[in-house]
């Protein structure tokens, strides 16, 4: 297996990085390119940019962010938010993104996952699953779509997804630890890489998640502070997590 990955996640709205708890009460906290570059320098393995405004306002503004990030950052990054078609996704990859992430649009039309995988290759297609109590939510966690999380994960794999980005809505922003039980269920249900998201509060939380998932998404734990990533990496190494030497 490749080395476990730490993936800072930047929520983007109107071209700015924002933050909020449980997807609500968004505040402006910086420029996506500057922050992304700083995380890259701090040892991030990949980056995720989620356009949290795109689905809600039916608008895609991410291509410009992707192009600017690609010029500054030479590690892989994923862009998600408001992608509804192969054309949307292709524009992001052509701008320099490595993967795209789909969520609400895949729930609305699961065939989209196959279309994306056929055109871009599975390795470029991340399906983001926002989940609470074993059920899937769409539209940035605001709508219960009445689907079982494990069944939806299996369907995504069958349709050609390359990775699953699994966010526990009830843990997101709480720093109370990842939902390890859910992650273990998904690890057993699919053979795709799983990216754990939601609940990181300590290095021990992350180390535990990386026992069952291939990567950990880091959001509120970093406080938009790249130095925190440096110290977290040291703590994780101390806990025996074999992170790459990023020098």
């Amino acid at each position, binding site marked *: *297996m490749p080395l476990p990955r730490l993936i800072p996640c930047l929520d983007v709205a109107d071209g700015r990085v924002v933050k909020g708890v449980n997807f609500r009460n968004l505040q402006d906290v910086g420029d996506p390119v500057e922050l992304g570059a700083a995380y890259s320098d701090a040892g991030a393995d990949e980056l995720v940019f989620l356009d949290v405004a795109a689905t809600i306002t039916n608008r895609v503004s991410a291509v410009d962010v992707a192009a600017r990030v690609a010029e500054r950052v030479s590690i892989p990054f994923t862009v998600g938010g408001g992608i509804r078609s192969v054309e949307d996704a292709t524009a992001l990859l052509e701008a320099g993104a490595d993967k795209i992430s789909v969520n609400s649009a895949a729930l609305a039309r699961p065939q989209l996952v196959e279309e994306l995988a056929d055109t871009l290759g599975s390795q470029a297609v991340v399906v983001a699953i926002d989940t609470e109590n074993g059920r899937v939510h769409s539209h940035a966690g605001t709508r219960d779509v009445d689907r079982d999380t494990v069944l939806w994960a299996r369907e995504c794999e069958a349709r050609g997804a390359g990775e699953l980005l699994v966010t526990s809505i009830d843990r997101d922003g709480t720093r109370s630890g990842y939902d390890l039980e859910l992650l273990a269920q998904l690890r057993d249900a699919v053979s795709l890489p799983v990216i754990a998201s939601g609940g990181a509060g300590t290095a021990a939380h992350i180390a535990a998640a990386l026992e069952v998932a291939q990567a950990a998404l880091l959001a509120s734990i970093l406080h938009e502070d790249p130095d925190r990533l440096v110290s977290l990496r040291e703590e994780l190494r101390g806990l025996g997590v074999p992170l790459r030497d990023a020098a």
Partner: protein
Amino acid sequence: MKVAIAAYGAGNVRSVELALARLGAESRIVHEAEPLLDADLAVLPGVGSAATAMTGLRERGLDAALLQRASLGRPILGICLGLQLALDESEEDGGVAGLGLVPGRAVRLREGRVPRIGWSVVEPSGEAYWFAHSYAAETPAATATSERLAAIVEHGSFVGVQFHPEKSGAAGHRFLATYLEQCLSRV
């Protein structure tokens, strides 16, 4: 040094272009045989499916240009799918004939989570690079490995890397810098 990046409807050409620009190399994205043949270095990037990519190369006459470069001993760098396309064949998409620049075939990964995505240490250098693939080369031309999989393949003037140096941060930058220097010394 003039670098031509083959554009054939598959691939992360922009990321490769940006990585080469960071190294000060003059690169251009080409869709036709002639500039691909004339460049000091031809780069064959690639993500996506083998069948679509081979069709894209043939439609543009880029396959013949690459074969001619190889026969003249002019450098070619294949990245990820670009490495796999250089082999005799791939088992992807029900079987696809490759360019045959390098003996061997691309086979589906049978162990671990697939796609295989993430950073992995390449031996003998000990550097970690970023991988994203579901197939890997089985070839006698492998000169470096990652978890026993072919990571670097060298045959004649062709060098193929299964990882993405253009997305491998400082380690990828060092790899490309060293490779460009080697190409320069041959120009």
